[in-house]
């Protein structure tokens, strides 16, 4: 009896600790009801948004960086977001909190278009 209990304890303790860790780990996200923080990047290079279509989960913060010698903007075609003018190496970030497709363009060079797909 004594032996058996000890054996159970030996097995159960690590399992309980593991379960406890799991329990502690996941609910912190669920408890605040916030999506996990994620980030993604769009590089503006040679008058092109790269990647031209970026697919990200809900809650992702997308950062555009202008690598050109010429200023650009990143402006939602549907008025969802609008960067200021980004000179060389300047950045703009926007966090997408709703699923959907977000087309955008450079208002200075409107041939430059891209979209963010939020799932």
């Amino acid at each position: 009896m004594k032996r058996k209990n000890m054996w159970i304890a030996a097995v159960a303790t690590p399992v309980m600790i593991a379960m406890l860790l799991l329990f502690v780990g996941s609910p912190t996200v669920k408890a605040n009801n916030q999506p996990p923080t994620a980030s993604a990047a769009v590089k503006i290079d040679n008058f092109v948004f790269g990647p031209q279509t970026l697919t990200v989960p809900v809650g992702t913060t997308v950062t555009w960086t202008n690598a050109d010698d010429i200023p650009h903007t990143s402006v939602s075609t549907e008025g969802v977001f609008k960067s200021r003018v980004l000179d060389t190496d300047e950045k703009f970030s926007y966090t997408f909190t709703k699923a959907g497709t977000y087309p955008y363009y450079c208002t200075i060079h409107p041939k430059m278009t891209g979209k963010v797909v939020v799932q």
Partner: protein
Amino acid sequence: MPDKNENLIDQNLQDLNNDGVDRRGFLKCMAWAGTGLVWTMSGGIPVSRAFAKGYGKDAAKGEDFTFVQISDSHIGFNKPANPDVTATLQTAINKINAMPHTPDFIIHTGDLSQLSKPSEFDTLDQVLKGASAKQIFFVPGEHDMLTDNGEQYLQRYGKDTKGTGWSSFDHKGVHFVGLVNVANLKAGGMGSLGNEQLEWLEKDLKGRSASTPIVLYAHIPLWTIYPDWGWGTDDSEQALSYVKRFGSVTVLNGHIHQIMQKIEGKVSFHTAMSTAFPQPAPGTAPSAGPMKVPADQLQKVLGITDVNYLVSGRSLAVVDSPLEDSGASASGNAGEPLAVVDSIHG
């Protein structure tokens, strides 16, 4: 130097010169790097002659005049393609001031500034103040309307204009129209004039005699040069339909930082060099971004455009001059034309 060049050009162009086309309504445009080369145009047939020869003859008849186009100064730009754009603008102004006759006025076809900053506009004003021609007409480039829908631009340079900065005026019998094709651009599109401006243009031209020479100027080319890079204006066809009945139409644009010319019927299209930095020829680079050339070459790819109006022929001669003449013309030889005029067709 001019005589020698003239002779060479005369020889080169003799074949083109002997078609006896009536000079009335002719349109001439010229690509020039230290020497002279004139393209004369009537009914879709390009003919050429030496610029200086014709000018000398007609100039005595009075009312002929010259104006200068400058473009794309991008004050505030400081990247390797030209770390000192203020200095090269100053060189352009010096070149204008060195002209034998003070031009009647200057037209700046936009991108005065790099980022629409007040300090950039201030610097531009300071340099332009030193120009021999005191009257300067402007149209905005997309760089001049970056932050405030062009409000500051309008306050400074477009006080007597309509809408986003369009206007017209008459000078010695020529009707000039400045158009804005950089406002309210749509995703995926090129330059745009918009309905309000098109309606205004139609009214502005209505009732004018078909013999009135017309000069249209705007920042982005009013003809499609390279759609992939947005080098064109989506609704320019509409605007050009209003000028079709006129005998002489000259269209002056900037934006692409290089000389391009095309003649269609009685309409001559011309783009000017930048005073700041060159851009690549269409499709020859991954993008239209600033082109870095060796420092000693820079002033050869920047420049100004003189336009001479000759009353007798009701014609305009467009002359592009680099800030620094090429070595060939400086040594007295006929220099190569700065831009190959390869797109002339009727």
